[in-house]
């Protein structure tokens, strides 16, 4: 087994670990905001490590370049999607985005 194959295997294992963390976290956590946090390992660890394994295996071929593009897309879209989802959840629960009266977190004076 060459060093090349070991690197590919390690990157694949790391990526799968990220997805397993996400899958287990989504099932275990009951609070919505905790579930949104558990979207991150899939899109940040898994979606970078597995395309990296493709690039190590194939080099910068057509497949490698597109794998990098997929990794960049998922990496950039995850924070935006998490923010939009959390915002939608808050607006649904509180009927508005700004802090409601008597809510227990810092509110600006003006």
């Amino acid at each position, binding site marked *: 087994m060459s060093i090349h194959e070991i690197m590919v295997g390690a990157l694949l294992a790391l990526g799968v670990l990220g997805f397993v963390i996400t899958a287990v976290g989504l099932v275990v956590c009951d609070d*919505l905001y905790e579930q949104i946090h558990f979207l991150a390992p899939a899109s940040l660890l*898994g979606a970078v490590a597995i395309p990296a394994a493709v690039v190590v*295996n194939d080099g910068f071929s*057509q497949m490698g370049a*597109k794998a990098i593009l997929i990794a960049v*897309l998922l990496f950039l*879209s995850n924070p935006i*999607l998490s923010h*939009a*989802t959390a915002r939608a959840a808050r607006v649904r629960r509180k009927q508005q985005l700004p802090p409601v009266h008597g809510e227990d977190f810092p509110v600006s004076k003006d």
Partner: protein
Amino acid sequence: MWLLTAFALLTCLIGPLLLCIRGDTVSRLVGLEAAGAIIVIMLLVLCEAFHRAIFVDVPLSLALLTFGSGLVFARFLERWL
């Protein structure tokens, strides 16, 4: 090795599936986003496993569509649904 990884990713879909079955409406959106990320990478791994470089366009366009659909669903859940 690549097929084994694809199978492991397929197994990971159980988490979002359970969330979509038992969660409330916004939790189901979270499950959809997680499932989207998993499926994009699974398709990429399958392309690599079967040496079909031409099909990498499928996960690439799916990644774009998952992003757009997540934003649209979030906006709809916020205002109208």
